[in-house]
């Protein structure tokens, strides 16, 4: 019965895909967006950007993703309706049999629910779609803006959308005294620590709904309010009990929650929904449930699937091709990638010295970890150049709500973990950590290498000439292909130039034989930068990275929902270089960032 339903849905999808391809093609010819047709509010569009910063197909692409989001939401509703209700039994009381499925599908329903945002135009998934392992779904945004538009078009954040996959496996943030380093947390800057829910991923899910640049709710109680009116309210009550959503919201709640956070009318009030202490507590509990359900979805086998070629290889049911094996040996040998992207093996074969570092090339290691996560949960400053296309730099003027995201303009610097520890980026819940800010400046979380290469089936690669799906890599999206990513690790210190992006000397090609200087020169990681890999060896590592994409041993859930277009042509080495723009003369780092103690050091940040 359920299979028949899915089959019917697939048929409908095929028709939808055909229709959407046509509309997408036409839309690609549209000019720079001046209005937001996806925005149900009457708010004027916020466009502080010079021409060319926003991609010309932005509105049509946002509409495409909305359609895809709605399609998956409808799928999830069907899945929920088909789910036998769990039975609450035992001591402690447990939702027997379908309890796990219930909370996972609840998280899925929440993830694709646009009605949570003030203008009902943005769901969590709007920036995190399954066909790219829940990273950014719009090729042109990945090529230009870096961050994705939030509920207010076109406010946008400052960093790339991180993949959901395996984020629930990151531990609660901790400072390890022996290692002198932080491990765990979620987000590029680890600011979702997990300090209260004891689950970094769940706490991560509590940030975007009230981030001014993302969903933009003005109050966490708005999420509880909107969940109380959700189509899936019954499922929430089934899991957490009748009455869990019975909060006495005042009549003006709907009006308050339809305004974006940061609006001048709210002043500095983070709880504009007027709730008494008991009602506020109940709303907070609902918001914790929101977080736990989204974490359940992200931790489920639908999202963190362990279904890659590499998993099959560890299991013994897949044999790596010669290039994949060579790439893997480089990944854990000469490339030294597994010093941070831990692969769970106990030994590392490398070529003999002087190129290699291990004594022989024999793979004598067993899999010490049956499902390695390809991250050490730590953070590093890899020395990415400042990306002048990052939309955050341009948001230095107030929008129609009187909100200015970044008054510092190009004096903004992304210090990553360091800014969080100083409570600049978000409140740091542990004062004993603040002292480590100067040794953490510029550090960003080590992503899992799993699913870095995942693309929709119709665009089978991230790499030009393709057909490829344009992704963006690292926290500021400076890197546009995996070839460039590996080449950066390999040659950052071989081709360093004391210039900003867009200013490589004549005769040099940025990202090929010219790497502009780091945005944050402090705490630069020198494990990488001059690995001595040949061009062919770089390619082999890229081939290996593709074995880490889920969806090999079984289909990846909802990976079939991409209805956009692939890109073609060019070379992975220079992919996206046509969109490089010259970095303007940079003012020194804003005092609101670099002037907050403990000050960056030993060298000041330019």
């Amino acid at each position, binding site marked *: 019965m359920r299979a028949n339903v899915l089959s019917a849905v697939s048929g409908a999808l095929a028709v939808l895909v055909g229709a959407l391809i046509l509309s997408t093609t036409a839309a690609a010819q549209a000019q720079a967006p001046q209005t937001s047709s996806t925005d149900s509010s009457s708010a004027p569009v916020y466009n502080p950007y010079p021409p060319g910063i926003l991609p010309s197909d932005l509105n049509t692409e946002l509409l495409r993703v909305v359609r895809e989001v709605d399609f998956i939401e409808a799928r999830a509703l069907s899945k929920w309706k088909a789910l036998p209700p769990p039975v609450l039994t035992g001591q402690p009381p447990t939702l027997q049999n379908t309890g796990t499925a219930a909370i996972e599908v609840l998280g899925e329903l929440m993830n694709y629910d646009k009605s949570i945002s003030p203008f009902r135009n943005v769901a969590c998934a709007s920036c995190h779609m399954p066909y790219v392992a829940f990273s950014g779904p719009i090729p042109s945004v990945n090529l230009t803006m870096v961050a994705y538009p939030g509920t207010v078009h076109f406010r946008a954040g400052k960093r790339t959308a991180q993949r959901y996959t395996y984020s629930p496996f990151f531990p609660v943030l901790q400072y390890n005294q022996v290692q002198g380093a932080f491990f765990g947390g979620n987000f590029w800057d680890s600011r979702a620590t997990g300090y209260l829910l004891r689950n970094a991923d769940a706490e991560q899910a509590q940030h975007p709904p009230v981030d001014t640049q993302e969903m933009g709710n003005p109050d966490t109680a708005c999420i509880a309010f909107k969940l109380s009116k959700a189509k899936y309210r019954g499922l929430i009550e089934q899991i957490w009990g009748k009455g869990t959503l019975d909060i006495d919201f005042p009549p003006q709640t709907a009006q308050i929650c339809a305004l974006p956070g940061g609006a001048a009318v709210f002043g500095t009030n983070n709880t504009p929904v007027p709730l008494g202490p008991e009602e506020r507590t109940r709303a907070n509990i609902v918001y914790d449930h929101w977080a736990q359900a989204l974490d359940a979805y992200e931790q489920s086998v639908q999202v963190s699937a362990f279904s890659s070629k590499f998993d099959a290889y560890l299991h013994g049911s897949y044999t790596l091709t010669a290039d994949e094996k060579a790439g893997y040996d480089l990944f854990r040998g000469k490339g030294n990638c*597994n010093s941070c992207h831990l692969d769970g093996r106990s030994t590392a074969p490398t070529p003999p010295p002087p190129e290699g570092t291990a004594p022989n090339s024999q793979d004598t290691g067993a899999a010490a970890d049956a499902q390695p996560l390809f991250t050490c949960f730590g953070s590093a400053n890899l020395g990415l150049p400042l990306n002048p296309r990052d939309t955050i730099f341009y948001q230095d003027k107030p929008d129609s709500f009187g909100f200015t995201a970044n008054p510092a303009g190009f004096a903004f610097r992304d210090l990553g973990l360091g800014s969080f520890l100083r409570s600049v980026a978000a409140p740091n819940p542990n004062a004993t950590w603040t002292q480590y800010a100067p040794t953490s400046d510029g550090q960003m979380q080590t992503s899992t290498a799993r699913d870095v290469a995942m693309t929709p089936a119709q665009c089978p690669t991230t790499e030009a000439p393709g057909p490829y799906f344009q992704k963006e890599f690292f926290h500021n999206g400076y890197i546009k292909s995996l070839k460039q990513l590996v080449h950066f690790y390999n040659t950052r210190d071989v081709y360093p130039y004391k210039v900003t992006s867009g200013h490589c000397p004549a005769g040099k090609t940025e990202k090929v034989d010219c790497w502009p200087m780091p945005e944050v020169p402090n705490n630069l990681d020198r494990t990488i930068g001059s690995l001595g890999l040949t061009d062919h060896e770089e390619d082999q590592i890229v081939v290996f990275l593709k074995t880490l994409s889920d969806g090999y041993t079984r289909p990846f859930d909802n990976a079939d929902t991409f209805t956009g277009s692939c890109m073609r042509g060019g070379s992975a080495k220079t992919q996206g270089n046509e969109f490089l723009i010259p970095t303007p003369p940079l003012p020194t780092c804003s005092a609101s960032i670099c002037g907050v103690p403990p000050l960056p050091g030993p060298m000041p940040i330019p």
Partner: protein
Amino acid sequence: MIALHTKPAMAAALASLLFSSSGAAQVNAYVAKEQSPAAKAPRVQIARGPELESADESTAIIRWTSNNPGGSDEHFAVVHYGTNPKELDQTAKSHIRLNQKHAETVFRVSVAGLAPRTTYYYTVDSAQASGQSDGIRSSVGKFTTPGPGERIMRYPQPN
């Protein structure tokens, strides 16, 4: 009193334990070698280098390869330097993540704030996250920075 009575027996047991421990250690060492040949080296030392990787008029990168010093994964490569070989009073250090699965690790340090066309002398060391030295000491090496706009590249470039 009781202790005195049991002392001979304890001594025998101790001797037996020492003997078996010794045997066990050999077995474990063999197993460890098979599964993890890159554990902390018995004697931590530099295998290659130190040498100048690259330099421009104000910055130099020094690199060397050590066998595995063990200790914290989070490590620092350290250079003590100066223009007087008998007074290496300046220090530069760079962050390195030790790959405990590798028998050897490449350490690299960026030394900034140098003067052009100047000869510098240096020794290298590495340290754990705590700052504790690995006890590696090189002999004194030297390099000369190029003039403005010039660049030295000693390490082989990718082909």
